[in-house]
C-alpha cells in the first residue's frame, strides 16, 4: 500500500513539470506586452520599462525564465507580481476563500446528490424519481452563469435571503449561495450516477442474500446497496474537483468572491505569467492529491482492486 502511494506521489513530478511548462509557455506566447499594459494609456520612460523588464526577467529567453521560475518555486519564493505584491501572500489570501467555496460545493453535491440519488433509485419509476430526473436534466441544461445570475437576482436581491455579492467578508454563510450555484450541475450528475448505480445494485444477488439473512431494510440499503453504489460516484467526485476549481472562475466573478478564480482571471487579463503559473501549479497539486485520495478511497470501497499485491 505504502509502495503504491509512493509510486503515485512520484508520478506527481512529471505531471507537475509538464503542466507548469505548458502553462508557462502559453503565457509567454500571449500577444501584447504586459509591462506596457501596466501603464495603460500613458507613455512611460523607456528606461523604466527596460528596468521593469529586467526586474521580471522578461528580457530573458523562455527557458531561462522557466528555469528561474522553477528555482524560485523550490526555494519557496514565488516572487512579486507586476504590482509589486508578493505572490505568496496573495495566494495565502485568496486560497482559503476558494477552499471554503469548493468544500461547501463538494458537500452539497456529495451529500445531497448521493442522498437524492439513493431515494430516486430505490423508488424507481415513482413520482419522486421522475421529478428528480427531470429537474436534474433541467439543471444540467442551463449554463452556470445563467443560473448564477438568476439566483443572485431572485434569492439575493428580490427575496433578500442571502447577500447577492460576497465582497470582502467571505464566510461559510455568505459563500453558501455561490457554493450552491457552483455545485448544482455536479449535484445533478452525482444524483443520476448514484441513482443508476443503486438501481443496478438493488437487484444484485448479494442484496437478495442480505435480505434472506433477515437484515432490516435500512441496513440492507445502507450497508449493502449504498456502499457498493458509491464506487463510481467516488471516482466522479474526484475527477470533478478540477471542474469545481475551473468553475470557480465564473461563479466567483458573478458573486464577487475574492477567491482564486477572480485572481486568476485578473492575472490572465494582465498577462501576469508568474501569478498565473503559481495559481495553476497549486491547482495541479490539489488535483493530483485529490485523485490519489479518490483512488485510495476506491480501493477501500472495493477490495477487488486493492493495490498492495
Amino acid at each position: 500500500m505504502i509502495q503504491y502511494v509512493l509510486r503515485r506521489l512520484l508520478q506527481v513530478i512529471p505531471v507537475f513539470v509538464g503542466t507548469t511548462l505548458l502553462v508557462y509557455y502559453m503565457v509567454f506566447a500571449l500577444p501584447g506586452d504586459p509591462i506596457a499594459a501596466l501603464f495603460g494609456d500613458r507613455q512611460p520612460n523607456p528606461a523604466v520599462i527596460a528596468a521593469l523588464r529586467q526586474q521580471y526577467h522578461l528580457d530573458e529567453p523562455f527557458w531561462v525564465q522557466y528555469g528561474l521560475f522553477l528555482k524560485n518555486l523550490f526555494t519557496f519564493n514565488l516572487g512579486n507580481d507586476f504590482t509589486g505584491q508578493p505572490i505568496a501572500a496573495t495566494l495565502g489570501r485568496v486560497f482559503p476563500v476558494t477552499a471554503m467555496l469548493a468544500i461547501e460545493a463538494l458537500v452539497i453535491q456529495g451529500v445531497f446528490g448521493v442522498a437524492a440519488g439513493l431515494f430516486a433509485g430505490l423508488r424507481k419509476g415513482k413520482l419522486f424519481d421522475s421529478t428528480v430526473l427531470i429537474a436534474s436534466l433541467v439543471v444540467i441544461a442551463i449554463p452556470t452563469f445563467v443560473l448564477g445570475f438568476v439566483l443572485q437576482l431572485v434569492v439575493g436581491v428580490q427575496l433578500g435571503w442571502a447577500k447577492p455579492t460576497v465582497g470582502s467578508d467571505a464566510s461559510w454563510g455568505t459563500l453558501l449561495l455561490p457554493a450552491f450555484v457552483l455545485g448544482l450541475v455536479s449535484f445533478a450528475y452525482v444524483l443520476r450516477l448514484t441513482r443508476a448505480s443503486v438501481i443496478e445494485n438493488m437487484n444484485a444477488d448479494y442484496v437478495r442474500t442480505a435480505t434472506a439473512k433477515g437484515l432490516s431494510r435500512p441496513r440492507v440499503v445502507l450497508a449493502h446497496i449504498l456502499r457498493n453504489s458509491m464506487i463510481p460516484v467516488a471516482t466522479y467526485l474526484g475527477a470533478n474537483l478540477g471542474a469545481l476549481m475551473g468553475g470557480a472562475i465564473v461563479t466567483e466573478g458573478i458573486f464577487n468572491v475574492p477567491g482564486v478564480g477572480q485572481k486568476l482571471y485578473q492575472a490572465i487579463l494582465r498577462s501576469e505569467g508568474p501569478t498565473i503559473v503559481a495559481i495553476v501549479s497549486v491547482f495541479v497539486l490539489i488535483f493530483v492529491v485529490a485523485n490519489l485520495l479518490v483512488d485510495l478511497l476506491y480501493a477501500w470501497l472495493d477490495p477487488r482492486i486493492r493495490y498492495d499485491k
Partner: protein
Amino acid sequence: MSDYISPDRPASDPLEPGSMEPGSGRRRADGKGSVVLEVRDLSVDFGVEKKWVPAAVGLNYEVRAGEVLAIVGESGSGKSASSMALLGLLPSNSRVSGSVRLSGKELLGEDAANIRSVRGKDVAVIFQEPMTALNPVYTVGAQIVETVRLHNEVSPDQAKERALRMLELVELPDPVKAFKSYPHQLSGGQRQRAMIAQSLSCDPKLLIADEPTTALDVTVQAEILDLMRNLRNKLDSAIVLITHDMGVVADLADRIAVMRKGLIVETGTAEQIFHNPQHPYTQALLAAVPHLGQGGTDAAPDVDVTAALAAATHAELDSVDHEELVRRERENAAALAAAVSRGPVGEPVLELTDVAIEYPKQGRVPAFRAVEGANLTIHPGQVVGLVGESGSGKTTIGRAAVGLLPVAAGTMRVVGEDISAAKKNGKQLHQVRRHIGMVFQDPSSSLNPRLPIGESIGEPMYLAGVAKGADLQKRIEALLDQVELPRNYRNRYPHELSGGQKQRVGIARALSLKPKLMVADEPTSALDVSVQAKVLELFQNLQRELGFACLFVTHDLAVVDVLADRICVMQRGRIVEQGTRDQILRNPQEAYTQRLLAAVPLPDPEKQRERRELRAQLLATGTE
C-alpha cells in the same frame, strides 16, 4: 456458546464433532422427523404489463426434519420462484397466495418484522452463484458475523468465534484465513462453502438450496454435495433442494417433486421417481438426461463406469457384492477388448504438436501460459471431446484452433496449414478460417441482436464471396432446413427465439461454409436438459451426414460420451490423458481422469450410492 441454540434444539452443541448421532434431534422414534415445512395451495403470480402471469399454481408439499426434498424442473417451471416466495424474497411485482407453515406457524401474510426474524434464523437460503451471492466489499467473516449478531445477543468476539467454527464445520482448509478473505480471494467451491457456513450459522430448521452446485465444476460439486449430506446428518435440518440436475437429485434427495410450467406434476420418494416415474413429463425428463456410460450406440455398447473405475483402482465396494463386482469388471474388460476403433482416415484436419498457448501480456499483467505441451490430432470425420474443469485450458485450445489466440510454442496445423506461423499472415489465417466453423457457448450473446437470423446465417457465405443474391437466400433456406428450423424464421430476430432455437441458428451459421473442422465450445451447457438432448441429437445427425471433424469442448463428460469418438482430458493446461471413448471410460489410467469420472453424479440413486463409495475410496487412496 450454547446460549444461542434455540430451545427446541438438543442441549449439546450440534457443532461439536461427534456430539450428535445422525438422525437424532427432532427425529421421532419411527425414524421420521417432525414436519418442518408445510406448503398448501401455494400460488405465485408475476405482474407483467398489467396482467398476472402465473409462475406457480396450487403447490402442496411438506418437508420433515433431516429430510431432503428436491424440487426438480427446467427453466421457467417456477421451482425457484415458488421457493423464494416461502420467505417473501420475490420482487414487488409478485403476488403470493396459499399457506406456508413453518413448524406449524404461518409465514404468508406475516408482518415484515416477523418475517425478518425467521429469515436467516429459522430458514436459511443458499444461492446458485457463490460469486455474486456474497457481497464483494466485505470479508467473508464480516458477513457471517453480521448474520450471527443479527439473530443472537452475542458480543463481537463470540460472534467471531462462532463464525470461525462454522467455517471449520464446512471443511474450509484454513478457517482463519477464510474469515479474513474477501469473496473474490476464494475459489468457487470455497465461496460456496462460506455461503453454506453463513446459512447454517444460526442453526436453521430449514435450508433452501437454490441450485447450490450449478456454477461449480463436477469435482467441486461432488465435494459440496458430500458436505451437504454430512451436514444434513449432523444438524438434522430439513433441506429443500432446487435443481435441474437429475444427478444431483439422485445423490442427495430423499423425496422429489417434479415441476413443470408452475405445477407439481409428480411427487414421490427418490426410488419411485427414478425407477417408476408415472407422469409422461417425468419420464421424458429422465430420458433426456445424459447418463455417463450410456451414450453409446449399437456399435459401442453402454459402459459400466463404476465397474471400470473399480477395476482400474482395485477398489472393493461394500454396497456391491464381490462376485457381482468381479462379473461386472470382467464384462467391462471384455467389452474393451472387443471394442473396434475406426483407424484414422486421411490427412489430419487439426494437428497440435507440443503446443503452448499464451494470453499475451496486457500492461502490468504478465503473459499467462494457459496451455503447455499439448499434442492432439483430429482426423476427418472424427469427433474429439475435450473435457476438463474451469481453468484447464480446454476453451483456450478451441480458440487457438480458430486463430483467435496466438500459439506461443510448437506447431498447430489446421487443414494442412501451419497457423502457428500464420499469426503474421492475416491472409492465410483468413483462408484457413473458411474451413472452420465455430459454435459458441451462449447462444444469446453470440448472435447479433440487430440482425435477422437469416442474415446471421448468410453472413459468412456473403463475406467469403461464396454466394449472393438469390443463391444466398436459397442456401440460407437449405441451412435452416438442415437444423430443422422453419424457413420463415429467417426474418426473425434472436430475441424472438428460444435458447435451443438460437443454438440451432449458431450451428447453421457454423455449417454455412461447409467446414472441414467444427469447433464447438460448450454449445449445450446453457440449455435445459430436454433441449440439450434435442440439440445434441441434431448435431450428431448433421455430423454423420456431413462428415465434418469436430473438436467438442465441454465440462460435461456425459455429453462427450454421447458424441465423441475420442476423449481428451485436460487439467491445469495439460492434456493428462487421451484415447478412444472405450479406453477412457472403461480403463481410465490417470488419477485425475478417475477422480473426474467418479465425480459425475449418476441420475440413479442406487448407482450413485455405489459411485459415491467408490469416489470416497479413490480420494482416500489419492491423499496417501
